Structure formats: structure tokens, C-alpha cells
């Protein structure tokens, strides 16, 4: 499968999935995620939780859980060559960037509008910055990124802005074993 996760890691993740599933119905709901205190205090916690749930659904099963987490596997050198034929693995640089893009893109229309950017910024700063200042930050960000003048950031514009950032390292978690 394109997931590229080892057997022992799957077993552990299943054990973790099971311990989060308080209702024991084989699927996680948003409340199950919010029960994790470290996630509940994360400013982008709700956006991250949302990434697990496909459009319009309220439950995520183990497959979906693993699929989302697979984006965060580190990119190993041997994998870069291996999967050229079977399509891109979930943890490629592009797919990691796409995951981050979707954190900003609230309505999933493949564009980050000024409004969406403002909302996400507001989540990250809380009440500590004024509307005007936040607005100017948003405007400047869009100005820098927007190349086709539609006042929105598309995925390719997003990728261009972040081309110097080490996405592979910043959006990976190191699995042991």
C-alpha cells in the first residue's frame, strides 16, 4: 500500500486508536480527539482535528486515521526512488504542503481567501492583536504570495512561497521502530 508503515507501527497505532475510542464503536469522533489535553490547548487544534474527517462526515475509522497520519512519515531517501511508478506517496513534500494548505483553506475550495487567512490567524493569536493589525498582516501575506492577482492564494502560489522552507523536516514526526 502507499502508506508505507511497518507492521509494528500499525499495531501500536491501532492500540492508540483503540485507547482514544471511548465509545468503542471502531471510529473516532471529534470529541474523542478533544479529550487529548495537549491537542485541546493547541491554537490550531480544531483545524488539525478537522483534517481527519472527510467532507461532511463525523466519524473516522482506523484506515482514515492512519491515512492522515501517514502524511507525517519522514521522507526517506530510498522511498524517493521506489514509488515513481505507483504514484506519489502520502508523505511526499507536495502532499505535506497540501496538508498544511488545507489547514488554512476552511471551505475546501482550493483557494485561501483573505477572510480564511484572517480566521486562521485569529485562531493562532487569540485576543492579543487588534483587528487592524491582523488585517494588515493578512494583506501583506496575500500581496507577497499572490501572482495572478485574484486576491487569493492558490496551492501553487502557496508552494512557491514556501519553496525555501524545509517542509520535510518540519512536517514529519519520527516514528521509532
Amino acid at each position: 500500500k502507499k502508506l508505507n508503515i511497518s507492521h509494528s507501527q500499525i499495531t501500536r497505532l491501532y492500540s492508540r486508536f483503540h485507547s482514544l475510542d471511548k465509545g468503542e464503536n471502531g471510529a473516532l469522533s471529534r470529541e474523542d480527539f478533544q479529550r487529548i489535553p495537549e491537542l485541546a490547548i493547541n491554537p490550531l487544534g480544531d483545524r488539525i482535528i478537522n483534517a481527519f474527517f472527510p467532507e461532511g462526515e463525523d466519524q473516522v475509522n482506523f484506515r482514515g486515521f492512519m491515512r492522515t497520519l501517514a502524511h507525517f512519515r519522514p521522507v526517506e531517501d530510498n522511498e524517493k526512488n521506489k514509488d515513481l511508478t505507483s504514484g506519489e506517496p502520502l508523505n511526499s513534500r507536495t502532499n505535506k504542503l497540501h496538508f498544511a494548505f488545507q489547514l488554512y483553506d476552511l471551505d475546501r475550495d482550493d483557494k485561501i481567501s483573505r477572510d480564511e487567512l484572517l480566521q486562521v490567524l485569529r485562531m493562532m493569536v487569540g485576543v492579543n492583536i487588534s483587528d487592524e493589525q491582523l488585517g494588515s498582516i493578512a494583506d501583506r501575506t496575500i500581496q507577497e504570495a499572490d501572482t495572478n492577482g485574484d486576491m487569493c492564494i492558490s496551492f501553487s502560489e502557496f508552494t512557491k512561497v514556501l519553496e525555501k522552507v524545509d517542509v520535510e523536516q518540519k512536517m514529519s514526526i519520527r516514528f521509532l521502530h
Partner: protein
Amino acid sequence: MGPFMSPFNNLLCMLLGISFTVWFTLLLVFIIVPAIFGVSFGIRRLYMKTLLKVFEWATMRMERGAKEKNHLLYKPCSLNSIIAKESTSLEEELKDIRRNCSSPELDDSFDMSDAFYFCRRGIESIVDDEVTKCFTAEELESWNLLTRSNYNFNHISSRLTVLWGLGVVIRYGFLLPLRLTLAITGVGLLVVLTAMIGFLPNGRMKNFLSEKVHLMCYRICVRALTAIITYHHSENKPKNGGICVANHTSPIDVIILASDGCYAMVGQIHGGLMGLIQRSMVKACPHIWFERSEVKDRHLVAKRLSDHVKDKSKLPILIFPEGTCINNTSVMMFKKGSFEIGSTVYPVAIKYDPRFGEAFWNSSQFGMMNYLLRMMSSWAIVCSVWYLPPMIRQEGEDAMQFANRVKAAIARQGGLVDLLWDGGLKRGKVKDTFKEEQQKLYSKILVGTQEVRSRS
């Protein structure tokens, strides 16, 4: 019918009578009398050593069996985590991003990649977090022949299954009735004797007798659980006028500590059997029981506790500051109430050995009766108790800092992880203030400290 049955009946009655007598005599000689005098024959330790050998053999068989069948034997290894978490802070990581990017001169420089940090931290906490795993029982590396701790150890060999079956018979057929008898004896004696002592006038005689009676009954209860306890540093045992604090894993903690010393208990008055026990205990020596309504009133609670410790003739108070049962791998936040009173604190660390029976009471999973049944049908409860040197609040230290200092000492001694999280998270949600702190920190990095300070 008549004449044929009666000699048979007589014989049956006689046999039953004899076996009961033998049973009770053995019970009395080997268990109750030593409990009264506080000596031990060493039977329990021998039992423990035998069990360990059996477990080792069982694990070896399983590993061999798994290799033969080429299965992967699931080893929980709860000491190692699934992932290695990055230890960089928000500030370090964001500064790193800005260094590598184009415009470092701008003051309020937001970068789209700022979200990466929060995203990664969020995903890390989904895969493995410190708190939720404190509220479920620890996983074992080897199997201890109890079905309840059998996660993935499928049928490997029939010899092992036979052993397990034998274990079930011994535990439920022999150990459980024995323990139940002892428990009933212990509790019954406690209620009756303390009520009797209550009629004596207050004075040295009453205190002396009350002490002896409490100790004796708790020792019988200890044997009712087949608890094998090792006490360390008894020279630091709590003295009158002090407060004893310990980490909390189960209601059994009380029995374990109270069988080695006399304490004044603190708690809410319950109904039923618990309430009966509480009411008779307080006749013999002053414990602190609160009505349900009084529990919310922090000042009242603090006043009663400080009145008690000021009276040097009264016993040390036993308190569990975590407020709830934790699974004995970590110590969670201590509530500062007992540390505000200003008396000497005697910390005690309790660590259970999970190989013989899981002592953690997961109150969301099973109730008290179910829990006691599980306790009494485990192999044994093995634990170590360390009495730590007394601590006093220092100059310039507030109650919270003092509580954290005591907590760190207990965690260090017991080999437990020291967490800052509140045990109340077992049932309740985390406070929003923590999220607001994170947001404030990020805002400071974004626009500089001045702006943010003027706003909040």
C-alpha cells in the same frame, strides 16, 4: 428412605463440620494471629517467588511458541513511545524559519509556515500524549496468566492453557473464598471493636487500644488482599501534628499505609457499608469526615484540617492531593489545599508491581465492587512504600511551589513521571487559559512584546 439416609446424612454433616473446623483453625493460626501481633511467617513472600518463576516459564514458552509458528509476538514496551518528540520550543522554531527566509527586517513578519509548528505538535499529541495514558492501566511485557491482561497473547500451547486453567481454579476456587472470609472478618472486627472502644472515656487507654485495634484490622485486610508490602525508611514515619501525602492509585492505598501506622483519615461521608465503617471508626479516634455539602467550602475544610494538626495529641492526617486515582506510572498535579495549612508534610511514595495484579482503579471502567472482586481474584498485590524525609514550606515559596517540590520528591523516589497536568482531566476539560498562553506567546513573536503587553 428414612433409615438409609440418616447415617449418610450424619456422615456428611460430620465431614463438613470437620473440614470447616480445620479450615478455620488454619485461618486463625496462620493468618489472624500473626496479624494481631504484627509478625509474619513469610508464606506470602514464598508464594510471590514461586509465582515469579511460573511467569518466567510461561513467557519463555510463549516466545518459543511464537518463534516456531513465525508469529510476531506483540511486546507493548510501554516505556518506549511510538514516536520521538521534537523538543524545540515555539520560539526556537519560528526564529529558525525567519532566519532562513527572505525578509528578516520586518517586525511583524508572519510566515505561512508558522502553522507547521502547531500542526506537527498537534499530530504528535494525537499519536502519543502524556495525559490520556495515565488513566488506563499500564501494559505488561510478559503475561501473568490473568485473562484480563492478555492483549495479544493468543493460544500458543496447550500446556500454557492448562496452566492458565489451573490458575483460574486456584484463584477463584481457593484464594477468593479465603480472601473474602478474611475481608469480612477484618471489616467486621473493625466495626465492632471500634464501637466498643467508643464507650471508654477519652484518655491514654482509649488511644492505645484504638491504635492496636486499627492496626490489627488493617493487617487482616492486608492479608485479605494477599498484599506483600515492603516498607522503606521507617524512621521517617509521619508523626502527630503532621500531614502525610502520598500518590494515589487505588482505594487500597489507605489500607496499605494504615496497616503500618495510625492516621486520621479525611474524606466525604458515604452511605451504606462505607458510612457504617466511617461512623464507627470515628468513635474510637478522631477522623475528619465531611458532609457532602461541606466539601465545596474550601475555608471550612482548611479550618478543620488546621485545627486538627494544631492539636498535637491527634494523629497525622492522611491526604491524597492528586484527588483521583492515577495509573501508577506518573504523578499528576497536587492540589494546593493541604499545602497551605503550614504544618510539616511527610511525603510517601507508593509503587505497585503490576506483574501480580493491576492495582489501578479505573473508575470509568468498573465500579468499586467489581474492582474489589478483581483485586481479590488476582495473584497478589505487591508494592513498595517509601517514607520520605519531612518537608516544610520555605520562606518565599507559595503553596503551589511547595506542592510541586513535594511532588517531584515523590516522583523521583517512586520512579514515576512527574507531570504538571491536573488529575481532574480524567473527567473534565482542560482550562482555556493554557490555550490562551500559547496564543499570547505566538503573538509576542509575531508583533513584539510591547504591543501584546499593552493589549492584555
